[in-house]
C-alpha cells in the first residue's frame, strides 16, 4: 500500500532535486543556446564552486551562504578570462566549431579536475552552514530540507533573472542577436567579444554559485563534476535544445523521475529509467518535452 506521506515526501524530494539541477542547467543552456558552445567543463565549474565554498566558508565564520556572492563574482571573472580562448578555437576559419569547442572544454575540464586533485588531494570536504540546517516539517506533507529549498529557489530565480536580462535589456538583445547571426550582429555595431564574454562569465558565475549550494547539500569532492556534466546534457535535451525556459520543466521531470523511481521501483533502476527517458525522447520528440527546441 502506498503511504500518502511517503508519496508527498517523494514529490517534495523530486521537486527540490529538480531545483538543484536547474541551478546547473541554467548556465549550460545559456552557453549552448546563446553562444552555441557545448561546454564539457560545466560540471567542473560546479566542483570548483563547491570547493570554493569548502575552502572559503571557514574563513568567513563557517557560513557557506556567505561565499555565494563571492563565488559568483570570482567565477564571472574567470569566465570572462576564459571565453576569448574558447572564442579563438571556435571562430575564424576553423571548421566544425562545435567540435572544436567540445574538445577545448573537455581539456579544460580535465585540467580543472586534475588541478584540484593535485592541490587539495582526493578528500571529500564539507561546506558548512549554520543558517540552513535540518528541515521544516509540514504536517501531512513532509519535510522540506532548508538548504534544498533555498537552492531550488535560487536556481529558479537565476533563470528568471537571466531571462529578464536576455529579453528585456539592451545587453540581452545584443546577446540574442549574436546567437541569431554573428556577422549581421557585428555589422549592426554589436561588440561581439564583449557580450560573449559577459554571457560566458554569467554562465561560469551561475554554475559555480550552483556548485556552492550543491556543496552545502552534499559536500565537495574533486570527482563530483562529471555527474553534473551528464545531468546538464540531460537537461538541455529534455528542455529542447536552445530553449531556456524548458530548463525548469526538464529539471522537475528529472528530479521527480529520480525520486519516484527510487522509492517505488527501486534505487537500482534510477539511472536505467533516466537514460531510458532520454533515449526515448531523442527518438520520438527530439525538439524536447515542450516541443520548442531546435532540430536540424
Amino acid at each position, binding site marked *: 500500500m502506498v503511504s500518502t506521506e511517503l508519496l508527498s515526501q517523494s514529490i517534495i524530494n523530486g521537486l527540490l532535486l529538480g531545483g538543484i539541477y536547474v541551478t546547473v542547467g541554467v548556465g549550460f543552456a545559456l552557453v549552448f543556446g546563446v553562444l552555441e558552445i557545448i561546454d564539457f567543463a560545466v560540471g567542473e565549474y560546479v566542483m570548483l564552486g563547491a570547493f570554493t565554498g569548502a575552502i572559503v566558508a571557514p574563513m568567513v565564520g563557517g557560513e557557506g551562504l556567505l561565499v555565494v556572492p563571492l563565488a559568483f563574482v570570482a567565477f564571472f571573472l574567470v569566465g570572462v578570462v576564459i571565453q576569448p580562448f574558447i572564442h579563438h578555437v571556435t571562430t575564424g576559419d576553423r*571548421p566544425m566549431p562545435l567540435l572544436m569547442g567540445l574538445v577545448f572544454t573537455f581539456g579544460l575540464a580535465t585540467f580543472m579536475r586534475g*588541478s584540484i586533485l593535485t592541490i587539495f588531494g*582526493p*578528500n571529500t570536504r564539507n561546506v558548512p552552514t549554520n543558517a540552513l540546517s535540518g528541515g521544516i516539517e509540514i504536517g501531512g506533507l513532509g*519535510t522540506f530540507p532548508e538548504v534544498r529549498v533555498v537552492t531550488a529557489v535560487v536556481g529558479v530565480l537565476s533563470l528568471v533573472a537571466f531571462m529578464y536580462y536576455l529579453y528585456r535589456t539592451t545587453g540581452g538583445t545584443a546577446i540574442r542577436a549574436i546567437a541569431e547571426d554573428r556577422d549581421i550582429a557585428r555589422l549592426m555595431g554589436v561588440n561581439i567579444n564583449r557580450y560573449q564574454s559577459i554571457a560566458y562569465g554569467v554562465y561560469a558565475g551561475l554554475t559555480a554559485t550552483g556548485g556552492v549550494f550543491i556543496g552545502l547539500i552534499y*559536500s565537495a569532492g574533486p570527482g563530483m563534476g562529471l555527474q553534473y556534466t551528464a545531468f546538464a546534457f540531460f537537461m538541455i535535451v529534455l528542455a529542447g535544445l536552445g530553449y531556456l525556459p524548458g530548463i525548469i520543466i526538464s529539471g522537475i521531470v528529472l528530479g521527480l523521475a529520480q*525520486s519516484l523511481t*527510487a522509492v517505488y521501483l527501486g534505487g*537500482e533502476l534510477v*539511472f536505467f529509467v533516466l537514460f531510458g527517458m532520454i533515449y526515448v525522447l531523442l527518438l520520438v520528440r527530439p525538439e524536447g518535452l515542450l516541443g520548442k527546441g531546435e532540430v536540424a
Partner: protein
Amino acid sequence: MRDNLKNTVNRRQFTKAAGLTGALGVTGVAGCLGGGSDRGGDKFKFGVVTSLSGDLRFGGEVTRRGYDLWKKTINENGGIEVDGSSYEVELTYADAKSDPSTGADAASQMITSEKVDAVLGPYSSNVTLAVAPIMEKNQTPHISGSAESPRIWEEQYKHTFGTVPTVTLIARQAAEEILSLDPTAESVYVSGVNGPFSKATASAMRDAAENKGVEVLAYDLNPSDTDWTSVVSSAKSEDPDLHFHGGHIGSHVSLLKAADQLNYDPNGFFCHYGVNTSDFKDGLGGDASGTFGATVWLPSIERTGGKLFGSAADYAKAARDEFDQSPDYTQAASSAAGIVYQQALEELGAAPPLSDTEQSKLVSILEDIEVQTFYGDVTFDKEGDFYHNNTTTSPLPVQLQGDDDEAVVVGSSASASEANYPVSE
C-alpha cells in the same frame, strides 16, 4: 554557425585543438603515474595497480600511503635480506582510474612491460575482481591490502591473496555487536550501494540482523551517485531503531547529510567502510560524531608487532610523521601486505629478478605463511569460501566519539569503551 558544421574537418587544426586539450589534461594530472621499465637485478620490483584518480581515488591514495610507507621503512632498514645479501624494494605504480577494465589493462601492461616480481593489489573489490584473472593468467603473485568482497575469494584464484578479512566477516561481526547494545534494537533499515563490496557489506549486515532476530524493515540498494533523500524518506517512514549502510565513504557522507536535512534520526547509523578516515570526517564536518563503523585495526589497538614496526602505535607514529594524518586499517593492511611479501621472499631465498619458477614457489610459500605484524597475525585460508583471504585478524565495532571524533572500540570486548547509544547530539 550551423553552416560551419557541414564543413570538412581540417586535420591540422583539429590536431592543434586536440593537442592543446591533451597538454592541459596532462598538466592537470601530472605526477600521478610512475614510469620506466628498466629491470636491474639489485632490487625487488613490485607493481602496484591502484586507483589514483576517479571516484575511488581517496581509497587508492590510502593504499598508496600503506605501500609507500612499507617501501620507505624497509629500504631504510637495508631492504629484504636473501642469503646474506640485502635488496631494496622498488614500487612502480599504474593508475586503475577507479575502473575495473582500466585496472586489468594496467595490470597486464605492468607484468609484460615492467617485468615486476610480484604485485600489490588495487583499492576496491571491483578493480581487484578484474585484476585477479590477469594475475592468474600470468601466474604472478598478488596480495591485496584492501579488497573485502567475498566474491574475490569465492573465485578460488591461486595467485591472489588479501590481508583484510572479507567484509562478510567484518560487517557481520561488528553489526551483531552493535545490535546487542542496550536498549536492544528491534528493527533495522539496511541500505547500500549496488556494487560488489558494498552489496556484500549490506548483505552481511542484513544477515547479522536476521541471525539476531531483529526485523529487517528494508534492504535498499542504490547506485553510488544517487540522491539519498529517497532512501532516507523511505527509511524515515519505516522508523527503524538502527540504520545500517554498506558503501564507500562518499555514499556514507551523502546518506548522513540527507538524513540531517530530512530530520531522520534513528538510534544510530552503522556505516562500513571508513568512518575513522579524514575523508569521512571532513566530508561531514561536525556531523560525523556518533557514527558506528567497523575496523580490523586501530592505532591504539594491542597487536603482536613484528617485522619493521614493533606495535600498532609505532606504525601510526611513522604514518603520521610521513603523511601528517592517522592511518586507517586499509593503509595498515596495505603495509602489512608488503611485510608478508618481505617474509615470503626471505623464506624463498632467491635474488631478484624472480624467474617464473621462483614466482610459483613464492605463491606456495604465501599459502603456508604465518606472519606476526603490527597489524595483527596474518595467515591465508587454504580452502573454502575465503580461499587465500586472511581471516585471522579480528574485526572490531567502533564509534566516533569526543571532540576530535576519534574512533573508539565499543561492544563486548574487554577493552571496549561505553557506546554513546542511543546516539545523542
